């Protein structure tokens, strides 16, 4: 814990010895530990005294099963299968979402054309994607990939369109007045304005894409986390199901906290106002 003195002029609150960021981090970690501890405690109490241990196995038992899954290598292969499909799906969603968002942001006709599809896509139940994909593609990698793409695409498109809408028109006019060419305007005005919006779209759809991916794997896949969860369910194994669920949660939190947050910080390091 580095005791960096705070700058003067903080008023009555200037008594802190840690920098704001460090304090925030300590508080975050403490909260996390307390939260996780409280959760495990609650779970143990529930499984010991409220429910049966068969119905809700204690955390330790789940932990053992999780460890077995990791040790056997099933964890790595299945998660990799899931991630691979997720990435393909996202690639497809970006490839379609960007042009669609561009059209929506620049032309009224295309706005009207895509309007209903984009507005409605978010409320379509995930199960329909999953089962339609199964009927259409059978058990193959195409089902999850197409579902992920279909779920994420509208979010990316509408955020790109929103980004285009918020482009500073004066900057574009000025660039024209000073004889900047189109590529230069795109590179230095449009892209930096749209990037945060597009990234927000990716962040938002990521959470949804995970879910639909799991669902699609439950219905029509022969590998991946969703498939494993279904297998455990069909064996009527509560510890097995819970173990995969918790591995899934842990993995998702790691991706969320470390990969996406880092990426966001890196991409938007030029925006001073967001920094703590």
């Amino acid at each position, binding site marked *: 814990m580095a005791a960096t003195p705070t700058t003067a002029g903080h008023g009555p609150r200037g008594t802190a010895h840690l920098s704001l960021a460090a304090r925030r981090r300590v*508080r975050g970690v*403490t*909260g*996390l530990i*307390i*939260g996780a501890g409280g*959760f495990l405690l609650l779970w143990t109490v529930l499984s010991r005294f409220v429910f049966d241990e068969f119905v809700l196995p204690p955390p330790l038992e789940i932990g053992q099963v999780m460890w077995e899954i990791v040790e056997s290598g099933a964890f790595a292969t299945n998660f990799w299968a899931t991630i691979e499909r997720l990435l393909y799906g996202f690639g497809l969603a970006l490839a379609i979402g960007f042009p669609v968002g561009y059209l*929506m*942001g*620049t*032309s*009224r*006709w*295309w*706005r*009207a*054309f*895509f*309007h*209903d*599809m984009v*507005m*409605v896509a*978010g*409320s*379509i*139940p*995930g*199960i*329909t994607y999953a*089962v*339609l994909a199964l*009927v*259409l593609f059978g058990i193959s990698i195409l089902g999850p990939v197409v579902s992920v793409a279909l779920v994420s695409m*509208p979010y990316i498109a*509408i*955020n790109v*369109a*929103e980004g285009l*809408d918020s482009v500073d*028109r004066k900057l*574009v006019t000025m660039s024209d007045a000073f004889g900047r060419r189109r590529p230069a305007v795109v590179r230095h005005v449009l892209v930096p304005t749209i990037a945060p919006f597009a990234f927000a779209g990716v962040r*938002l759809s990521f*959470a*949804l894409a*995970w*879910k639909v991916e*799991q*669902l699609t794997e439950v219905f029509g896949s022969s590998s991946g986390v*969703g498939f494993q*969860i*279904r297998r455990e*369910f069909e064996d*009527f194994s*509560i510890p097995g*199901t*819970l173990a995969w*669920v918790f591995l899934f*949660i842990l993995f*998702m939190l790691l991706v969320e906290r470390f990969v996406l947050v880092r990426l966001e910080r890196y991409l938007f390091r030029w925006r001073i106002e967001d920094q703590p």
Partner: protein
Amino acid sequence: MSIAIDRTRAGSSGGGGADSVRRFLRSQRFARAASYVFLLILWWLASMYEDRFPAPLETFQFLWIEVTGGSHGGIVRGEFIEHFASTLPRFGLGIAISLVLGIAVGVLIGGSKLAEALFKDTLLVLVALPAIIWAFLTQMWFGLGDDAVVITTFLSAFPFVSVNVVQGIQAIPRELRRMSGAFHVSRMRRLRHMQIPAITGYIFAGFRFAVIIGWNAVLLAEWFSSSEGVGWRSRYWYDANRYRGFVAWVVLFIGFIVALDRLVLVRLQRRAFRWRDAQLSTIEREAEEIDVGVKGA
């Protein structure tokens, strides 16, 4: 609306009939109609690509028989009303519980630092959990029947209400809170004029997303742990290899939730947030509408 790179130019060439046709082709109404034709063509192409996948026309024929209760051939009849009648009470109950539980948990976490430290992460995990996991667990815990369906619905939906309520409470500007402290505004007046107006819109937003998420959860739970209801009925056709019936039910699922969302929920949300969003452009508001539920995730 359009920025510097505008594609629509006011066409003045041509005259009379050709001009009005062109104007019609450029109109937004035509664009919308064109998008539906485009979707139907996509659907039709999909049915060409895969024989199991039914074409639009036969699907709608099937849908008509199912909804009107006609005969599918033999003694199998359309059972639209029966299944909706057994699904809607479960759905309604699940959503009602999720609203009450969601607001309670949200107020708890938003109002207390300790509760936030303890439960915030759990809440975020719950938001991120796919409904299918609850459907499986409740099936194993409670067996077939109403319990599993209702519990899956509210367990999947309530975290979205909570996340939105927490956001609403925390979105109250710090200046406002400090000022009301400095001027000794009473607790009741703070609640009445600051906290309640601030979270109402967020509750509506959370409610809207809870309904959307809950609908998916109900369908999933009925698919796996019920012997009646719309989710079960679609599975019935699916298991019977009658994909026409299955896709017809998918059309109903989508139609139901989209109608509910666009005709009721979005309007409620827009009304509740009009103090905040009045200055947003159309596209900003629309982006807000489709983003709002997942923002907490």
